[in-house]
């Protein structure tokens, strides 16, 4: 019994000579560790299963064509929220990508071991795990309050600020994996550093850098807290100027889930399913790229 649970890469234990109490402790630990893993995996499938069961019923063509209903209105869909989410997420990534890639490049190529680079790397790691609600408050103080109004721009900036540390981190990690001789060979041909970086180092690290951007996308696509104070939400199509509230999926889910209207709750489940599936697909694709790049 115990022998079969021993992993194949470990030597088999001569159990006959091991004291019973030690054997029991070992077996207890094995069962506990495996049980804990089972619990976590079970919770994941519980959440996903529940999303499918409750979300599928709310999915129909009108979910993607009709706009979100007002209080007490029958029917309705999520079209404006889905489009708004796309716009805000894209805005965030469009802001974060150039900044994140350039900052990561500086850390890996120009700064390397300098004190300043170490400090920036450290601060970036802090920002990476800073509560997103604080980013929302920050953007509220610098963009919403002074301009007297919620706007899609503020929402995009908030999401961008959340995405930047992710992109900085992965870009730097990926550039560090590019072998030095590649850079030296290019420099020996007479290319200035910028050309070495843009046409050799970046190209070699492309897959990894794309992964970082995808991970950042997955991170910000479901963010709710920062949007509460910046883009807010409404039940209409957004105006192209992005001034005023912009409807988006996460805040819609938040507001609809706790409301007493049945069609709102149904839409909240459908929205949750859409958003979770998109994020899981994004993260799985990102992992696949990393695995393929190796």
């Amino acid at each position, binding site marked *: 019994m115990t022998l079969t649970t021993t992993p194949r890469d*470990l030597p088999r234990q001569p159990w006959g*000579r*091991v004291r019973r109490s030690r*054997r029991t402790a*070992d077996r207890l*630990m*094995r069962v506990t*560790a*495996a049980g*804990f*893993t089972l619990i*976590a*995996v079970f*919770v*994941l499938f519980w*959440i996903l299963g*529940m*999303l499918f069961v*409750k979300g599928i019923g709310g999915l129909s063509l009108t979910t993607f064509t009709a706009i979100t209903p007002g209080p007490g209105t029958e029917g309705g869909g999520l079209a404006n929220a889905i489009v708004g989410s796309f716009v805000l997420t894209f805005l965030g990534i469009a802001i974060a990508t*150039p*900044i994140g890639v*350039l*900052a990561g*490049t*500086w*850390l890996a190529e*120009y700064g390397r071991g300098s004190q300043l680079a170490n*400090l*920036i790397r*450290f*601060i970036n790691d*802090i*920002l990476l795990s*800073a*509560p*997103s*609600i*604080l*980013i929302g*408050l920050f953007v509220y*103080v610098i963009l919403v*309050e002074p301009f007297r109004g919620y706007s899609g721009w503020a929402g995009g900036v908030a999401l961008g*600020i959340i995405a930047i540390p992710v992109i900085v981190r992965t870009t730097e990690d990926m550039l560090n994996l590019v072998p030095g001789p590649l850079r030296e060979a290019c420099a020996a041909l*007479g290319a*200035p*550093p910028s*050309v070495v970086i843009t046409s050799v180092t970046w190209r070699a690290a492309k897959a990894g850098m794309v992964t970082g951007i995808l991970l950042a996308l997955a991170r910000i696509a*479901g963010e709710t*807290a920062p949007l*509460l104070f910046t883009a*807010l939400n409404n039940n209409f199509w957004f105006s192209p100027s992005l001034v005023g509230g912009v409807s988006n999926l996460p805040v819609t889910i*938040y507001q609809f*889930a706790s409301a007493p209207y049945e069609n709102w709750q149904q839409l*909240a*489940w459908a929205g949750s399913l859409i*958003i*979770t599936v998109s*994020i899981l697909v994004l*993260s799985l694709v990102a*992992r696949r790229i990393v695995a393929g790049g190796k």
Partner: protein
Amino acid sequence: MTRMPSAMPARRTPKAGFDRVFRHASFGAALLVLVMLAGIMAAMVAGGWPALREFGPGFITSSVWDTQNEQYGAWPAIAGTLSTALIALMIGVPLSLGIAVYLTQLAPPWFRKPVSTAIELLAAVPSIIYGMWGLFVFVPLFAAYVQVPLSNLVEGMPVVGTILYARSPSGLGIFTAGIILAFMIIPFIASITRDMLEQIPSVLRESAYGIGATTWEVVRHVLVPQAGASIIGAIMLGLGRALGETMAVTFVVGNANRLSASILDPGSTIASRIANEFNEALGLQLNALIALGCILFFVTFVVLVIARLLVARVKRY
């Protein structure tokens, strides 16, 4: 690479300008990271200042939150934040360590990858989904099968009867929020701990097995002492996340403004209070909420700095 050598000097002159621009641009982007942190710090202090000046240190110790009379105190939210995070750690840490040990020492090799992917996907699930799952699935079950029987059991007992008695067993409360948070921080603690355990040179493990140690003894006497500091770092990172988690907590914590001695009663955390009241807040209440954010910022900042230092210290070796 196919460039003619004679073409080089002609190309080089315009590139030199681009070279400088590129270097400055990337340096500027890197500095922006510092500016962002400084900006968040400044914005929090500036936005919360009116409330902090009005109430002084009493802002932290007072437990009154009265929008009619404009009296604001942060203590119930601070206590809620700390207690939910503590419960999350008490549940999440043993689970995460067990998972890390299972994934590195016990699971058959072909089984490791799918399981660690599943655990990491737990981290990709957005916080609002945890909130919905908590509110609609977990809360009713928790109320019916844990809260009600437990409250009946402990009613009238000293101490335990106070801490574990739910006055209104709705399933919402500090303890529920702690459980949900535990599952949100597990993937982070588990994956960092797993990485740390994997980095330990296998010679150390093999020599322990060589003198007849069981797997449990190898974990207890070799792996844990070796990776101890970074495991604590990973736990602190989880703590940082639990302190600032917003949406899931807002759904299940009950959003009560008063302080209760029972962990099964509704309460609120700093983040849930801000998310809940922000859009209706005006004037001093708005400042008080930003001041709450300011407190949250400094607490998480300290926790995250310590966490990163601990994790980084062992990574180098």
